[in-house]
């Protein structure tokens, strides 16, 4: 069922874009405008999710020009789920950011620098949010390229915002990698257009065939997307970029940005023709990521680096299950998406909590964090809950996702995949326990320092962690949304 033309699709894209311009126009740090537009964007996204759930696939021909001449936006269940996920994580991060930038002000001359950071944070973040929604909803490959550019540039800007030398170096590397990925994607788009005479995503996916130009196009597009998603062995740029950014930015990068390019990869690779031929490739790289990322995470000294390397490992899970997409019962897709949204909430909560520790203690050395739960009980709890979901313990979204992984793998007779997922959970437990043991350690601080962070920073992280838990309890709603095809 496709309703003729729905205008609900356009608002999650243009509301944040409008908000970004208004924030940029404001003279002083636009915290109120930013928060207002974050709430409006989140609201518009949730309404879209509800509409798709209630009425089926929505589409909107921009300028009333139908493809292949024009561009059309399209929201099926998967796209609507990603927009909804972005709304939930985005709202939590926005509320956290309000408290974060307020708490960093200390009343001395360093405040000017911090106010300048906040001044650019809001427009960049809202632009990124709009571009991500545009990416999820776009039905046109060239338009997707422009959205990718917007996402990449704003992410790089956000990464560099902290101004520390390591974050500048990481941002530069991120920019170069991202540009290379974009160019590769664009070259692939050129081949697609040359072969198919259309830029419409659905038509191109329908026309996939093992001819040299199509193979080339798909290889270029996939390579570009993998580079941007930081799948092992393309992960080298991710940990320093995600760990050294300002804490709300870390949560945005790990929780949302990598999901955008992963989602596009899924769009191209869900086709059976492709899965049958080379479906093992993403799975092998994913397996490598799970093991290598977990090992690296375990050996980190800084909490944010640990969480960043954990992202490298968790990206592996997003790819390792691609062979499962050929499942006749159709449980492969739900497993992947369930993992993606659980990871977004759990990892977002962990980065937000880690940022709270960093701001309170002035450092994030894991071994010296003992006693932090005394001052920041809510954040510590949020971090632990996020860790539970990451490990895949019930009742959490991560548990449901891994349960779907393992059962689907076993019914398909892919024992190695089921084993890999279980092994990966063990490795995840190892590094999560290492961090949680320090945070929840019974050791008391010698003198109790004054609370230096806003309450909204603690509670927004907890809310996001609870969302990850809720996913394990109310699994029907996301799965029903995903079922809209």
């Amino acid at each position, binding site marked *: 069922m496709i309703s003729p033309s729905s*205008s609900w699709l*356009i608002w999650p894209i*243009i509301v944040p*874009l*409008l908000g*970004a*311009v208004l924030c*940029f*126009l404001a*003279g002083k740090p636009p915290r109120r405008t930013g928060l207002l537009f974050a709430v409006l964007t989140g609201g518009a996204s949730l309404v879209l999710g509800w509409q798709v759930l209630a009425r089926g696939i929505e589409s909107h021909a*921009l*300028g*009333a*020009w139908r493809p*292949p*001449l*024009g*561009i059309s936006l399209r929201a099926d269940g998967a796209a609507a789920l990603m927009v909804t996920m972005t709304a939930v994580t985005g709202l939590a991060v926005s509320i956290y950011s309000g408290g974060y930038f307020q708490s*960093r002000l*200390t009343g001395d*001359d*360093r405040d*000017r*620098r911090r106010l*300048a*950071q906040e001044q*650019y944070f809001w*427009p*960049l973040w809202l*632009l990124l949010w709009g*571009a991500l929604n*545009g990416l999820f909803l776009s039905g046109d490959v*060239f*338009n997707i390229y*422009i959205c990718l550019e*917007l996402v990449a*540039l*704003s992410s*790089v*800007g956000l990464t*560099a*915002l*902290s*101004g*520390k*030398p390591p974050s500048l170096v990481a941002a530069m590397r991120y920019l170069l990698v991202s540009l290379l990925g974009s160019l590769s994607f664009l070259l692939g788009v050129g*081949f697609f*257009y*040359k*072969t*198919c*005479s259309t830029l419409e995503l659905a038509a191109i996916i329908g026309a996939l065939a093992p*001819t*040299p*130009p199509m*193979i*080339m*196009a798909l290889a270029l597009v996939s390579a570009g997307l993998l580079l941007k998603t930081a799948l092992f062995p393309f992960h080298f740029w991710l940990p320093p970029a995600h760990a050294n950014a300002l804490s709300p930015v870390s949560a945005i990068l790990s929780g949302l940005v990598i999901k955008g390019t992963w989602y596009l990869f899924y769009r191209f690779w869900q086709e059976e023709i492709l899965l049958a031929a080379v479906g093992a490739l993403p799975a092998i790289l994913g397996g490598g990521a799970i093991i290598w990322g977990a090992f690296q995470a375990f050996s980190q000294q800084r909490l944010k680096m640990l969480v960043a390397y954990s992202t490298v490992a968790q990206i592996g899970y997003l790819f390792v299950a691609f062979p499962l997409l050929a499942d006749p019962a159709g449980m492969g897709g739900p497993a992947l998406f369930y993992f993606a949204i659980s990871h977004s909430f759990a990892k977002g909560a962990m980065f937000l909590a880690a940022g709270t520790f*960093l701001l309170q203690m*002035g450092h994030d050395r894991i071994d010296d964090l003992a006693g932090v739960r005394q001052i920041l009980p809510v954040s510590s709890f949020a971090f632990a809950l996020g860790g539970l979901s990451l490990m895949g313990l019930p009742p959490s979204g991560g548990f449901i996702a891994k349960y779907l992984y393992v059962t689907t793998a076993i019914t398909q007779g892919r024992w190695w995949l089921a084993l890999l997922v279980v092994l990966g959970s063990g490795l995840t437990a190892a590094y999560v326990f290492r961090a949680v043991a320090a945070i929840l350690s019974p050791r008391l601080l010698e003198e109790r320092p004054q609370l230096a962070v806003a309450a909204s920073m603690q509670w927004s992280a907890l809310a996001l962690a609870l969302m990850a838990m809720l996913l394990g309890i109310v699994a029907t709603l996301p799965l029903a949304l995903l079922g809209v095809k």
Partner: protein
Amino acid sequence: MKKGGKGRTPRDNRGWRLLPVMALLLLFLAALARAYLFPGASAAGLAARVDASLAAGGVGSRVTAVLLNFRAYDTLLECFVLLLGVMVVWSLWRPDGAKSREPAAGAILASLERLLVPLMIMVGSYLLWAGSDRAGGAFQAGAILGGAGVLLLLDSSPLLKVFPKRGLVPGLCLGPLFFLSVGIAAMAWGGNFLEYRSPEASLIIIALEGAAAFSIGLCLAALFGGRPPERQAEDGRDQPSRNQGEFR
């Protein structure tokens, strides 16, 4: 780490290390050529469809019709890419780290500006107008206007004072904001986002191009300038530079 490693290797080793990279690149090029030259790979494109809809699009030029009507949404987002570029560059600017540009007030440059800048503004406006039925349009016009801005910035020309400092940020935002409002207005009129048809399409496209060209020109010049306007700069000028490694 990598730099240190490179420094230690003897210089004449480097050529040999490049060989496998060159071989891989050649292989990649060969694969590209094979895919490009594959028989049957070149399809007709969308030119015929564009021509068929040109009358309803409101302009005579194919390129302008595609950029400002059929795929206007792409152009809207491209305008945001440029604005985003300025935001990112400004966010990187440090009041303490950057040396102020030495104004090399040469007599030749100053007289060249007086000669060229009015001409460039005229050529830019012409390109904008010409875009409706031949090559030209907002991006070309914006590039020329941006060039004029760069010329003036080269020696901090007094002519820059004609443009009020306070107008810079609103000027940058004008194009994207106007584009968005046209799209929303079309929806308020009961159409789709950015829906406009002949006859009023011609007027809307010219207005869109004018606003976009103005902002594109400003964006390009602002990217060259590289620093936010004075108001913020003054705020940061008396700031000491000792806080660079600070994260709190």
